[in-house]
């Protein structure tokens, strides 16, 4: 029998090979498709690569990326703060939760595009427009996750902490917080994905810099290769954040879970995803 770790390494290598083959096939398909089309409809890979290089060295590149990041982070930060506090409040009081539940349903059915239009009306062309749209998209996701997490706190563990005469604040920190954290994390991850995507939509209509604004500008000027270049850049950035920050953070935070235990967060995540489907634009 092979040792377990070499087996796992073999499987990993085979998976990496498959992924590489898939990427190669897609690029090949792209290249073949681009052969018979004008470049303003479908620019080929080499042309997009050139555009990417030009973009990388352009004066506004860093400023645009940072502007978008700043807006997304501001919106997400606010959403986490408000969503966590509101989720805890709803989790603590059944009456409050019953009263506010319809509001949450409304939030979840309003499309991000509609929030964007409201934002333009209220805030005009400014940072606040994008921040607002990200906030309105991300906040309900986090609120729902934290609320579900708060409901899932084991009363048995609370009694245990009480039996040791821990204070209310200690019980909140030592029992509630670690119980809710996996739920919060899955909600925050979802919110990050959605928030990032809707920020671009908001920027196309409500900003004078940032990635979304440049995307629309390139589209208006029929610089299709630049649109492609931005897209490639975004996909790369997302994969980097997912694999370089979120996955390792999750592994570190939840290393106490055994492989045999189904993580409680995955269920909540799926549910939140299903609820928020219509908000994705």
């Amino acid at each position: 029998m092979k040792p377990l770790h070499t087996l796992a390494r073999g499987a990993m290598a085979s998976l990496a090979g498959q992924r590489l083959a898939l990427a190669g096939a897609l690029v090949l398909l792209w290249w073949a498709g681009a052969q018979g089309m004008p470049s303003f409809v479908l620019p080929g890979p080499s042309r997009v690569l050139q555009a990417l290089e030009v973009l990388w060295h352009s004066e506004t590149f860093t400023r645009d990326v940072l502007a978008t990041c700043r807006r997304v982070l501001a919106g997400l930060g606010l959403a986490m703060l408000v969503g966590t506090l509101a989720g805890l409040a709803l989790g603590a009081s059944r009456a409050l939760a019953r009263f506010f539940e319809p509001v949450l349903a409304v939030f979840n059915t309003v499309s991000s595009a509609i929030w964007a239009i409201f934002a333009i009306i209220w805030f005009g062309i400014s940072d606040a427009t994008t921040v607002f749209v990200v906030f309105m998209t991300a906040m309900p996701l986090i609120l729902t996750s934290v609320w579900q997490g708060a409901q899932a706190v084991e009363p048995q563990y609370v009694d245990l902490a009480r039996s040791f005469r821990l204070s209310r604040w200690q019980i909140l920190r030592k029992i509630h917080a670690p119980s809710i954290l996996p739920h919060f994390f899955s909600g925050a991850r979802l919110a990050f994905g959605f928030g990032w995507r809707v920020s671009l939509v908001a920027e196309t209509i409500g900003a004078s810099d940032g990635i979304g604004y440049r995307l629309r500008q390139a589209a208006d000027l029929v610089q299709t290769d630049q649109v492609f270049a931005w897209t490639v850049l975004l996909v790369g950035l997302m994969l980097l954040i997912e694999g370089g920050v979120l996955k390792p953070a999750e592994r570190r935070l939840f290393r106490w879970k055994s492989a045999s235990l189904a993580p409680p967060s995955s269920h909540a995540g799926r549910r939140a995803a299903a609820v928020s489907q219509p908000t994705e634009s």
Partner: protein
Amino acid sequence: MTGAAQPALEARGLVKRYGGLDVLSGVDLSVHTGEVLALVGPSGCGKSTLLGILSGLLSADAGSLDVAGVPARCFAQWQRIAYMFQEDRLLPWRSVRDNVALGLEGQGLGRAQRAQRVDEALRMVGLLHVADAWPHELSGGMRSRVALARSVAVLPAVLLMDEPFSKLDPQTRAQMHAQLLRIHAGSGTTVVFVTHDMEEAVVLADRIVRLVPSPGRIAEVIELGDLPRPRDPVAQGVAERVRDLRARMVMGPEGLQ
């Protein structure tokens, strides 16, 4: 064991009602310092409720409770009662070491002092070598021992236990009994426990309090101080007392006579 100047716990006229039901109706109980006391009785006799009130997790509707001579109103400040639940209730997100430390975190100890107490408690139950494991990696018996370590780590003056070993297999349970008695002998902790297992009651206890239901009250207190230790459950004297106790459960204080 008996005859200490001040009882560890002194309950007078405890009453507890759920709806129209008298779960406890005027229970007087004095727990001597350093003794091992068993609460037995059929379901619904209020033995778990009584234990809950002694621990401060439940409040009585009437009656009074003194802890080491002090009225139990200031219970929140009274740290040295530990309560062991029927389930081990290990927190899955904490390592074994951090689980044992839970009770100490409310006591304002320094980090080094806390670590030392945790190590001592784990050594006492023979689990120092798995201190860094996660609870899900342990067997049921090991989890119970961690729960016991968590309780004794706070150096309790009184250890209350609600059928703590009922979910273990007989062999592991016997090991837990030996471990508990060793810890008791070393620390002088007062132990009060609820059990359905008459053999467990006779092997462990200095006194057995038998409760009867509707309304929940104490039927009799059985002294076992004359029974030499260690008590082997198959030794004749011990087995006799177990049979006698079972008979009393069915027929009342006349028992086998």
